[in-house]
């Protein structure tokens, strides 16, 4: 459990940055970073503030051939983005989003005719490359999940967008459904994978969706973390 109490959360974040947590706890904090902006800020605070201490370790020349070894691996190493995202379901840090952005997206959603009947979570989906441009907003509540485009996002001709969820710490995504042409998908029963700390993603698929319910067949074009309201 990630504590809500300010002091407890800050102490936990400090212990996480120091690296003294038990492995299970360390993983729990890591997984929660994607969805918990307060925790993210607390971790960032400690990394920045404690950083001068690292200068107590004297600089040492690394082995002379090390750069060549690194360079030789770059060809086989895709950078963060579409492919990378699926390989790393629980990235240990995410770019900061923040609650202001969540609130703004929710207002936008309501203004566009959404009816968030007491939603518990909101998810803003954006391109992995452009995190400041939200293309879909999903709300999750007792009445299920609703996702709609807020940027008139359309799949390529003859293709469809399919929505996926990946549970915190999970390595395989779960198909939620194909988004109809009007850009709005409602799912009445809440998929179990959609909870705090999970990630939603949208891939480009054949009209009926990916043949494999646990793996997108096309590129992942939008992603977003499930955030608490």
């Amino acid at each position, binding site marked *: 459990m990630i504590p809500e109490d300010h*002091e407890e959360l*800050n*102490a936990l974040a*400090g*212990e996480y*940055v*120091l*690296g*003294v947590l038990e*492995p299970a706890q360390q993983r729990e904090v890591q997984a929660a970073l994607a969805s918990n902006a307060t925790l993210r800020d607390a971790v*960032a*605070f*400690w*990394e*920045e*503030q*404690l*950083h*001068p*201490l*690292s*200068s*107590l*370790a*004297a*600089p*040492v*020349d*690394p*082995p002379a051939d*090390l*750069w060549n*070894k*690194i*360079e030789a*691996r*770059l060809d086989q*190493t*895709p*950078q*963060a*983005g579409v492919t*990378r995202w699926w390989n790393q379901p629980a*990235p*240990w*840090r*995410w*770019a*900061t989003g923040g609650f202001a952005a969540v609130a703004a997206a929710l207002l936008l959603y309501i203004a566009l005719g959404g009816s968030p009947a007491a939603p518990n979570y909101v998810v803003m989906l954006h391109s*992995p*490359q452009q995190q400041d441009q939200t293309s879909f907003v999903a709300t999750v509540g007792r009445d299920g999940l609703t996702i709609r485009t807020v940027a008139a996002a359309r799949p390529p001709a003859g293709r469809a967008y399919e929505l996926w969820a990946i549970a915190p710490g999970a390595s395989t995504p779960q198909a939620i459904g194909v988004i109809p042409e009007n850009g709005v998908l409602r799912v009445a029963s809440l998929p179990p994978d959609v909870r705090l700390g999970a990630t939603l993603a949208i891939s480009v698929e054949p009209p009926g969706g990916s043949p494999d319910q646990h793996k997108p067949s096309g590129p992942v074009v939008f992603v977003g973390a499930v955030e608490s309201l």
Partner: protein
Amino acid sequence: MSDAQAIGLTSTATLIEAVARGSRPALKRLYELESRRLYGIALRIVRRPEVAADVLQEAFIQIWQNAQSYSPERGAGGAWLTGIVRFRALDAVRKHGREVLSDDPRLGDEAQEPDVVERLATQAEAGALRRCLGLLDDQQRRCVTLAFVDGFSHAEIAERLAAPLGSVKSWVRRGLLALRSCLES
């Protein structure tokens, strides 16, 4: 902050952003500028040169892969790089164990904890941290330093300080909370 520092800080951030856009020359430049510092940090934690080299290699692959997740408003970039290397080094230590401390001064094993505050004094950016560390009691300060710089677990700190595990956990925690309230004031 002096101009020279500002340029230094900006350039690390700029290089990481260039790496995020796929620039290999930027990654190489980052390596040239930061590898001695980062290798020193890794070596201090893992103690074995061959393991430290693996840690640094994996860290730079991770930097290449995840440069997009770095955001300049989070800081100048040095702390972000350090965080990646420290976590890699801690993983390696937890996985492979650690050599017994050698008391080799080149590995920083000499008894240096008590004068942490004085040694930080030479670091311009460390002003607030130095002042706040100075307010902690000795045990809290040693716990925080051994964990951050040497990558010691609670149990390793307890052994080093010949103190009960429960006391160490509490010193770490209270040290952090005292630091936080001082750094925020």
